[in-house]
């Protein structure tokens, strides 16, 4: 049952991120739904589910985008694993916990991407410090409580 729901969630998140974000993106800025969903699943179901779904979302992102192949998969797998290790060690129902964890994960994700590009990019990579880099973690933090509230209605809490 848990696997079926996670499978449906996988596709649902992919559809939102790659098909529908263009309809609610503001000035090119849209929340990182796979990252927020990954944090939620990792906190609720633990490191195993977190890293598996993280790998799946990451590799899918890499396939569907033109980014460095394997970069999203590595970062999402790591974030899923680490946050999964924190599962049930803090009050995940608190909004502040959700926002702080999402903010940290967003910064780690952005910084991780930058590092991976610096190391593995076949061409010289220059990070563009535009408003999206700064606003993305804040937007993720704002959206996370709403996503957690909606997801808790349909996804059961179960440790993998």
């Amino acid at each position, binding site marked *: 049952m848990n696997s079926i729901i996670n499978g449906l969630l996988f596709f649902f998140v992919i559809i939102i991120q790659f098909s529908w974000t263009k309809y609610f993106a503001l000035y090119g800025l849209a929340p990182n739904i796979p990252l927020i969903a990954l944090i939620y699943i990792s906190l609720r179901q633990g490191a195993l589910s977190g890293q*598996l779904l993280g790998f799946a979302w990451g590799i899918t992102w890499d396939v569907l985008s033109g980014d460095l192949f394997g970069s999203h*998969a590595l970062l999402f797998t790591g974030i899923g694993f680490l946050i999964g290790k924190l599962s049930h060690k803090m009050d995940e129902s608190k909004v502040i916990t959700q926002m702080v964890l999402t903010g940290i994960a967003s910064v780690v994700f952005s910084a991780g991407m930058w590092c991976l590009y610096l190391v593995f990019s076949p061409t010289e990579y220059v990070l563009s410090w535009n408003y999206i880099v700064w606003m993305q973690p804040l937007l993720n933090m704002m959206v996370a409580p709403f996503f957690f509230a909606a997801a808790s209605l349909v996804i059961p809490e179960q440790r993998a």
Partner: protein
Amino acid sequence: MNEEFSSRRTNLLFVVLTVINLFLLTTHLNVYIRFAKNILFYLLNPTTAVAGQALESTRNISQTLHEVLRVHQDNLSLVKDLQRYVYLDHDYQRMKDENARLHQLVNFPPTKMGNYVPARIVSREPASWFQWVVISKGSEDGITIDAPVLVWAGSRPAVLGRAVEIFAHSAKVVLITNTLCALPVQIKGIGEDGLLEGQNNAELRVNYLRAGGKIAIGDEVVTSPLSAVFPEGITVGYVRDITFSENDTLRIAAVRPLVNFNRLREVMVLTSRTGDRHE
């Protein structure tokens, strides 16, 4: 024990996945990795494409509904406009008719008829529809008692009645269809005289026609030179039927007036003519 095994399994899996990810990063999309990526792309892309199309179709529904609402609002607005234009068209037709009538009035031949005063019909009682009308000109405009009142019917003047009560700025006209009105007429082309009398309806009657006369249905009835009110030769109407009087010595003609009594708007009142007489 179980939990420890699960944790070890999780950690091991993390290591395996990390190694796979690092391998993918270091290979820089070689031929095999590119092939695998393309396969995955062909598998995953339809999902996002179909989802995008589904949302797009939903947006189309929203747009269509919006357009339907807009069309409905446009329709309401256009219906209002149409009602306004129907009213304006009616107004236009009325003014066009009035213009045509006034144009005919302007073309009225004054040399033959003498001077005339154009006037509007301002009052007409339904109960006395074929008996009286009130016109907008009176003694201040030169109208006198028994002044002939004509209307322009088609391309020529026709007899309507005569002024019987004169006020300063209005006058009461007795119509030729009134039973109180009698007018000497003649059958045009024959020259035979008779006396036209009203019937308080849309038909007239000419009495005292000779039994052996040549009057026929369709003959034109015009004013007689014997009339002290109307100039000679103005059309009154056409013979519709001919009957004999009770003793068969005279004939009676039913006459259809040339004037359309249901379209009376403007009239011409003759104020003077050569050789005025009093009956």
